[in-house]
């Protein structure tokens, strides 16, 4: 299938060109054949079912066997790279098949291979039959000569399609960028200093005492707009003596190794050593790197500092990875809903209070519900995932965080509204600023802009105690204001309509708006 709706990306490409190289992977979308890709299952080119252009690689299990798909080795010099590819799977019946992708860094011309592994679990995140994007950043170290890909596919997948494999060199240095360095340290850290220093280094001091070897460290979670970041770490070990730190491993919190630094002369000289890594956030798995010390001996004090610089925005990176075919084109179809379903409701916290459910009932709507839950690994997700919106008239996102919607799902909702659907978004602990909407595809659809995290404000109003501090867009209509802040805003987006409710059901106002007749009437009118 050829995707349509290409975007004009001239300005973005200029910006991006400062950061990354052109695509270095030859025959990226298999238009010139398999080009050295092999498999121990069956392999072929798709015929008209590609993500991009006409062809894609299709490997099949050939009789319920595990199989591997191996790429040719692409020779490249040392440096940082961004690798991405689109993939699509078909299941052979099992609920949770797995797909394991190895990125092999080849050294010289020999067979010395080192592996960085990424695991993809299907289940909560499964969208069989849908093209999905993955990406990773990695470093070819001095002495490495190239990179190859291997896919290990278990027998629960009947086929694996691969398309648009891209490899781009990330070219440091990047100048001072927009930076907010906020993080949450986890275990092993004892003190934090200068955590808010814009453009500065935030420091974590680890006072771990691994008297018998082992590892310790910390991971970090950052509150920054999505995008491609360069993160500079500085490490030092502050006490000599028994200390024998030998390696520092940088990894995402899903365990994907970004870099592995060997530290031969790190023993307690107190000198800072600096390393930079790149990370794309927050597409799918993983987030910003954490680090850990690994040693066969012991250490007492070590510290790490880091600084972030955003190189490109979410959409810029996304357009790059979609490679100009148009981000909006890559929307998933989702599972079909029962016939006659007209509303899909993302059921977030306190949805039962919002009045949406009785209004839908009054309107005689047939509603499909997806619940907000903490998924395996601690992320947020909707169960079930976003379905096919075919036939749906209204989508309600009731206090749903962005983390529960993949970029593709946000684009699907955006396409749904452009096509004439209605989107209603309500607030709370997980919406707008607190839900990470700033800079996202979802925000693009809204009649308001989000100014960042922590936008809940307390107001003295008989009907509402807490609302999100949002800014209406120029073309939007503010229906209701509280203390000169928009509480309810609407606009048209494409052929559709979007309603953003900034007022929340939080707190204990004297006469809650969500219990008032006027609110019920408004919702009845909206959803009729």
């Amino acid at each position, binding site marked *: 299938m050829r995707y349509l709706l290409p975007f004009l990306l001239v300005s973005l490409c200029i910006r991006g060109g400062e950061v990354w190289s052109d695509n270095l992977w030859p025959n990226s979308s298999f238009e010139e054949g398999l080009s050295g890709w092999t498999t121990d299952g069956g392999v072929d080119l798709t015929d008209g079912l590609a993500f991009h252009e006409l062809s894609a690689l299709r490997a099949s299990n050939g009789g319920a066997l595990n199989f591997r798909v191996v790429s040719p080795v692409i020779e490249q010099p040392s440096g940082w790279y961004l690798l991405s590819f689109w993939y699509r799977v078909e299941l052979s019946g099992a609920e949770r098949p797995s797909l394991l992708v190895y990125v092999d860094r080849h050294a010289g011309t020999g067979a010395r291979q080192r592996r960085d592994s990424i695991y993809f679990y299907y289940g909560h995140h499964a969208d069989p039959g849908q093209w999905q994007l993955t990406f990773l950043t990695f470093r070819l170290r001095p002495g490495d000569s190239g990179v190859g890909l291997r896919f290990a596919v278990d027998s629960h997948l009947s086929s694996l399609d691969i398309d648009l494999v891209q490899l781009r060199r990330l070219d440091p240095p990047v100048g001072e960028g927009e930076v907010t360095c*906020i*993080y*949450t*340290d*986890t*275990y092993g*850290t*004892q*003190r*934090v200093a200068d*955590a*808010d220093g814009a453009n500065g280094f935030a420091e974590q001091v680890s*006072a771990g*005492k*691994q*008297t*018998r*070897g*082992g590892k310790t460290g910390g991971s970090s*979670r*950052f*509150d920054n707009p999505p995008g491609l970041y360069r993160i500079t770490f500085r490490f030092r070990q502050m006490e000599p003596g028994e200390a024998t730190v030998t390696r520092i491993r940088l990894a995402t919190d899903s365990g994907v190794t970004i870099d592995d630094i060997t530290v031969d002369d790190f023993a307690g000289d107190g000198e800072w050593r600096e390393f930079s890594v790149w990370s794309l956030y927050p597409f799918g798995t993983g987030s910003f790197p954490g680090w850990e010390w690994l040693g066969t001996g012991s250490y007492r004090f070590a510290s790490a500092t880091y600084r972030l610089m955003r190189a490109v925005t979410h959409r810029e990176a996304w357009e790059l990875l979609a490679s100009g075919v148009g981000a909006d084109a890559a929307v998933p179809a989702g599972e079909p809903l029962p016939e006659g379903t007209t509303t899909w409701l993302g*059921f*977030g*916290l*306190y*949805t*039962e*209070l919002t009045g949406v459910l009785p209004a839908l009932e009054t309107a005689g709507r047939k509603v499909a519900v997806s*619940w*907000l*839950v*903490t998924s395996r690994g*601690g992320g*947020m997700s909707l*169960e079930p995932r976003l379905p096919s919106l075919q036939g749906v008239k209204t989508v309600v996102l009731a206090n749903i*965080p962005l983390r529960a919607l993949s970029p593709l799902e946000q684009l699907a909702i955006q396409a749904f509204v452009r096509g004439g659907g209605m989107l209603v978004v309500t607030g709370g*602990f*997980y919406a707008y*600023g*607190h*839900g*990470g909407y700033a800079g996202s595809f979802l925000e693009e659809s809204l009649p308001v802009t989000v100014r960042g*995290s*922590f*936008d*809940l404000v*307390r107001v003295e109003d008989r009907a509402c105690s*807490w609302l999100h501090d949002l800014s209406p867009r120029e073309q939007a209509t503010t229906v209701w204001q509280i203390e000169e802040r928009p509480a309810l805003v609407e606009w048209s987006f494409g052929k559709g309509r979007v309603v953003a409710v900034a007022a929340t*059901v*939080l*707190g*204990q106002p004297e006469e809650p708006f969500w219990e008032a007749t006027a609110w019920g009437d408004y919702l009845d009118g909206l959803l009729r």
Partner: protein
Amino acid sequence: MRVLSILLFVLSSSSQALEVRVWPEKLWVKPGEAVVLRVTSEPGAVIDCRVVHQVDTVAASFEGMTDGEGQASFSFTPPADWGYEAVVTAVLGEARATASEVFSCAASPFMVAVDYSVPEVYGHDVLPDGSPAPEGEVQNPQLAARIDQQVARFRHQYLTVGELMGPAFCSFSSIVPPVPNYYKAAHYNYSVNAIRQLIRELHDNGIATLIYVNACASGIAGTEFARQHPEYLAYSADGTPFVGGLSLAPVEIHQWYIENYPDSMKQVQGWYKENPRPEAVTNYKPKSLHGGYPGFINAWLDFRDPKLSEIGAEKIIEGQEYYGYMGVRYDGEYRVPSIGDPLAPSRDFRDYRGVKQPVGHEAEEMTARNLNLAFGKMREHDPDFLIGLNYADFRNDGRGAGSVKAPVTGSVSPGVWILDEVAKGALNPSHPDHHWEDFIRNMSEQNDRTRQVGNYLFAGWGGGPGQKVVDTRQVKAVSWACGLRWICGGYSKAQWFADVKHEYNRFALRYSQYLFDNRLRRLSPEEAAAVITVESGSPLLWEHFVQRLGDEYMVVHLINAPLEKGLTADAQPPLPAEGVRITLTGGMGGSSVKLVSPELPVQALEIAEGAVSVPRIENWGMLIVTP
């Protein structure tokens, strides 16, 4: 007294013709409170009952005769704290039998708590037709039997404190349930009738009860509390509430259950009958009722506003009035910065505006203020209210965050039960307590600090699912010698020590004053060497285990040195030490040296040329040296 009949067989000693049993009605009593000693033998037997305390001091003697049903009883009011042993002799004609049992007296049950455990009684109190039992005595025979089993276990293991898990979990959802048979997710479906009856029967047996809470908001009520008070939530750096999890899928079924009770309960019972293993069925409704928490799972709170701590205390007091428990065990206290689990010391907590919570001394001062407020409120309501904290920072070694704990340490003293949960991983080779040497040093130093401020040190939880156990006699002896008590049993994850609980715990309760008296001062190995020398054919641990109570007495633990360097599963127990010679110097020549041991009868050792000989230490012995 159903418990009595279950246990009697293990407490008797008899000749062929005559049996006698003694049963203190309570395991623990407060000073001034009498304990009734019930004796059972043949009708008409002449009973001699001596109550012994300290090492071998007779506190009271009773004489009497059993009645026509073979029963006799004596009321005894302990004259002082710590462990007692009632030794009973029955004589009937030529026949003679003896038996004994131990009990204790202390102002706080923590003083004499040799271990600590959780009596798990879960399930709903239903009538045969599936409808809820009326408020009162438990009607469900399975629940009633479970209560009896748990009380019997506590008596058998000589545990003076039990922790109730289930009704509360978080202290900001009401501890008083919305309906009398309710679910707090996981397996914590429970009934008010059963919890009340369990508490009552434990108390009747001289076993104190604490309710487990953590300083978070969970479940439907906790989630509603968070909705009403966004200003009290702690937020992550990305603006979302700092939570252990969120699941809205079960909310609807929980709300339905509450709104339609008691009919809903009967319906649920029907579902269970249709499918006794609902966990195996995806989306089956009962799974949602005892699966994940509905709403927030541990939403952490911002305790900068002291009002929040007072609210927490009020909830706990409300629960005490409803259930009757004696105290609370916090798993994470009203801390700034927010902290649900001291093992995960995250520091970057925000308020709803994104303003970071303080760390360091400012935070510790706020935490101390909160705890003073909360504890003050609870103790104002009940002066004897018991408080336990999961507060591993007591193990700090002066570096890092631990060095700022003085305000909190002061605020939680004295009389508070302190849990060091870090120690539970000691079987792991990379754990800081794994090696016996480190374990002894760390625990002894920690216990010193804990004792100095009048608190009580416990560690837990021992073991893990399917994990093999260490030589439990060794761990118990060494831990007690360090002043440390373990939390074990109850949770399926904590099965260390099961094999030796009875005999060792009985011994520890009996001689608790020589193990757990906060006035005991540990001598450094150098100080110890100045007053005592121990020679043995095989290595003994003793240098770190010499303690004095002023000029009253000195306690020396003699423990066979483990063969392995670390705490190891399936370690071979050391061989008994033989030919042990102890030389007393430095003015401790001693007018009296007695050896007590769980493996040997009490022995008064003869002092010859300032030295005593112990022929054999099976595993552990304590010398009580009185100058």
